[in-house]
Structure formats: structure tokens, C-alpha cells
């Protein structure tokens, strides 16, 4: 067994209820941090977008022949406007649509998506109309929409969990290392290097991060299972690929945060109270 592993075991042996409480709180904070991070990508409802033409389902686009006279366009406009299922109508000249476009177009907003089909059928048979099409039903793009309040709450959760993990880690490591102070002083007297002394503390931080990752991945997986069995609105949780990606990235984040917490704890070892001849 290497010296570092031996010292890590000895350090764990020095854990007392008070230090265990704060280190447990650190673990919980890291878990909350990971959960807040994951929520940005897994919770919320799907973002809905219109079809490729950019039309809403209650909209109809009517393309006109370039040969139509202004009077004929006016006539068509008035006829369409009189329809009870047309809420609004707008005309655009060819030059307004795109360069090289011939003929103008009407963009009609119907009173409901159901009315759009009837309008298309009616308009297609009119003289001077080259095509008429309506917007299709919305399709989820894979994006997830979170309300502003939720975003702010998650962001606050992230910041609070980082702050709490640092405070709890400092208290936890301080209590733990005070119970291990005699050993640290002895190691220094015996000529053990700082790196060897600090490594178990960093290892403990890493262990906390890894344990938080395990809980996090387990939580995400269970949430995924629950979501697919209930077919809820949170599309992110039902998407296996997204769940896997978030789990992997979250785990890496947890390991990094755990290591940083360990480094933060190891910095306490350098303080004066752990020096043999202070």
C-alpha cells in the first residue's frame, strides 16, 4: 500500500461526527450543484417552432401571377378580406419578398388553424393565383424552454451550492485536520514532503466529488426512467442521448469540483497550527 493510500485511510479514521456533518454537507452541496446544472438541460418544455417557411399553422401564403394587374390584385384583396375566416391580410410586392421574385403575395392570417385549410382550398381555384400553402403543425426542435423564474432559481441554486460547498468544506476539513494535527506535525518532523501530506486531503475532496457524481448519475437515471414511463412534458429527461451527455458532463464537473474542494482543504494544512515548531 502506498504512503498516500495509508495516510488517506488514517485521515478517514480521524473523521468525527462534527467533521462528518460538514463533509456530508459538502457532498450534498456538490450534489445540488450538479442537479442545478443538469436542470438547465433536462427540465422545461420543448421549444416549438413553425415549419420551414416560417408560417404559423393559422397562416396562409398566396403567390400571385406576375401578369396580374394592380386592379386585379385589389379585387382579390377585397374578396379575401370579406371572408369570415380571414382575420388579417397583407400584400407584399415581388421586390419586397426577394430579388428575382416575380409576382406579389398575400399573407393571410386566418381565424384558426382549422380555417387555414379551407382558405387554401378556396384560394387555389381563383384566377391569377399560382400557389397557396399553409403553415404546418409545430415540431419540437429539441430545444428546451425554461421560464425566466426557473432560470433565475436554478442560477441561484448553482451559486448558493458553490458557496455552501466551500463554507462546509472549510469547516469540515478544519475540524478533520485538527483531529489529525498531531500526525501532520509528526510527518513534518520526520521529513515527509508537503505533497505527500496534502495528497490524502485532496484525495478526500476527490472522493466527495466522485460520491456526489454517483448520486447525481443515479438520480438522473431514475428521473429518466420515471419520465419515459409517464411521458411527461420534460422532453430533455426522456431523451436518452441528452441524459447520457448531461450525466457525463455532470460527472466531469463533479470530479473537478471535488478536486478543487480537496485542494482548498489541503491549503489549510499549510497554516501555522499544523507546524511542529510554530
Amino acid at each position, binding site marked *: 500500500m502506498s504512503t498516500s493510500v495509508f495516510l488517506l485511510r488514517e485521515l478517514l479514521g480521524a473523521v468525527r461526527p462534527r467533521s462528518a456533518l460538514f463533509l456530508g454537507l459538502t457532498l450534498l452541496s456538490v450534489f445540488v450543484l450538479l442537479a442545478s446544472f443538469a436542470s438547465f438541460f433536462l427540465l422545461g418544455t420543448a421549444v416549438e417552432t413553425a415549419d420551414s417557411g416560417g408560417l404559423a399553422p393559422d397562416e396562409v401564403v398566396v403567390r400571385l401571377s406576375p401578369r396580374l394587374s394592380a386592379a386585379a390584385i385589389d379585387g382579390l384583396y377585397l374578396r379575401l378580406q370579406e371572408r369570415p375566416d380571414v382575420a388579417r391580410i397583407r400584400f407584399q410586392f415581388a421586390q419586397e419578398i426577394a430579388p428575382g421574385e416575380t409576382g406579389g403575395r398575400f399573407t393571410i392570417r386566418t381565424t384558426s388553424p382549422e380555417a387555414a385549410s379551407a382558405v387554401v382550398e378556396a384560394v387555389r381555384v381563383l384566377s391569377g393565383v399560382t400557389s397557396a400553402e399553409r403553415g404546418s403543425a409545430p415540431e419540437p426542435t429539441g430545444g428546451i424552454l425554461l421560464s425566466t423564474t426557473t432560470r433565475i432559481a436554478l442560477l441561484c441554486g448553482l451559486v448558493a451550492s458553490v458557496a455552501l460547498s466551500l463554507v462546509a468544506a472549510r469547516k469540515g476539513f478544519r475540524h478533520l485536520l485538527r483531529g489529525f494535527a498531531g500526525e501532520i506535525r509528526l510527518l513534518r518532523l520526520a521529513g515527509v*514532503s508537503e505533497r505527500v501530506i496534502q495528497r490524502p486531503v485532496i484525495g478526500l475532496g476527490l472522493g466527495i466529488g466522485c460520491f456526489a457524481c454517483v448520486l447525481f448519475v443515479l438520480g438522473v437515471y431514475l428521473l429518466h426512467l420515471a419520465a419515459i414511463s409517464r411521458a411527461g412534458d420534460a422532453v430533455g429527461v426522456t431523451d436518452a442521448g441528452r441524459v447520457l451527455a448531461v450525466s457525463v458532463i455532470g460527472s466531469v464537473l463533479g470530479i473537478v469540483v471535488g478536486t478543487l474542494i480537496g485542494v482548498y482543504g489541503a491549503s489549510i494544512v499549510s497554516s501555522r497550527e499544523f507546524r511542529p515548531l510554530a
Partner: protein
Amino acid sequence: MIQVSELHYSTEDGLKVLEDVHLRVDHGELVYLVGPAASGKSLLLGLLGAQIPPQRGQILVYGRNIVRLSSEKTLELRRRIGYLPQGYVPLPRTVLENLVFKLRSLGDFREQAEEKAVIALEAVGLLREQSTEAADLCAIDRVRLGLAMVACDDPLLLLLDDVLDGLTPDEQEEICRVLERIHAGRMTILTAARGPLPRTADGRRVIALADGMVSDP
């Protein structure tokens, strides 16, 4: 073995603790460094043991000048010196586990560490107390444990700070006998004491330290 020349040391507020100290201790010597409280004995031992960074002067320990050692070489040197600080407090473990912890931290396997620990405890006369909690030991046995702790990994040099302090005259005699046993003519030992020394120490070289100056009769 140990050669100190022109050693000076001042506190942060300019108080001179050691002033132009010259000292030589040969390999295999058992030397007593005697001086009143706050005379600089602990500081001198801390400097010799590479525990306190020196300020000015030259300290040669086994041919290495401590003043110029890199931090890595300093650690290497510390591992070859057994330094027992004043008021040594054992770890809250059994006597045997105190030694095993130190030896395992220095890279020994459990069996090897236990073997060395038993030899050291036998040398200081504490083998029967190996399973006793160190906190339950009496004053003299704590000193014995401290001696076993510093001697267990067979160092070249032992630096013992005020180990006789707080002991009865009989106990001081006993500790000096233990030192003679550990020394056995092969290990170099420098022991700081406030004096007067017990009779067992008669015939041993005594270096006096007062007001930061050394007198070596």
C-alpha cells in the same frame, strides 16, 4: 559530523538569540547541550535538525550545508535526523501504533514497521507497554516513547530537546541510562537540558549555551 560556524539568529523584532555560535560534534558522540530557559537551545537544535530555516552562518551536518540545501534535500536530511521537540505529545493511539504510524508514513510495510517498532521499544524499555494507550503513560514513559519514535528508523543523528524536563532526579538518571543504551557508541546524540545533569551523564561532553553564546570546555 556536525560543524557549526559563525551562526547568528535574530527574531523578527531584532532580538539576537544566537550570536556567532561555533560548535563541533563528532560522529558517535553523546553530547549534552546545557543552558537556562530561553538561552537558544531549542532554536539551535531546530536549526541543526533542518526544522527551522537558518539566517546567517554555516551548519554542516554530515558534510551538507543546511544553509544552502534545496527544500527537497532538506526533507531528505530530516529523514536521517531524529528530532524530538520539547514537550513531545504522543499521538492518541497505542504505544506500538505511534511508532507504526511514523514508520508506515515513511514507506515501510506493516510487518516491517512492527518489527522495527518492537526493536525500538525494547531499546527504550517500553516493550511491555506496547498495547497501552499513549495518553495513559506516565511522564518517564512518554519520554521513552519519544525516544523510541525518533530512534526507530535508525537515524544518523538524534536531537533531543529538553527530554529531562519535568522528570524526577531518579527518572532523569533512568533516561540518561536509556540514552547510553541507544547511543551504544554508534549513534550521534545531542541532548538539550536545563541542567544540572544527573550523575549518569558524568564523563560525557557538556556544551554550555548562555545568552546566545556557546562555551565548550
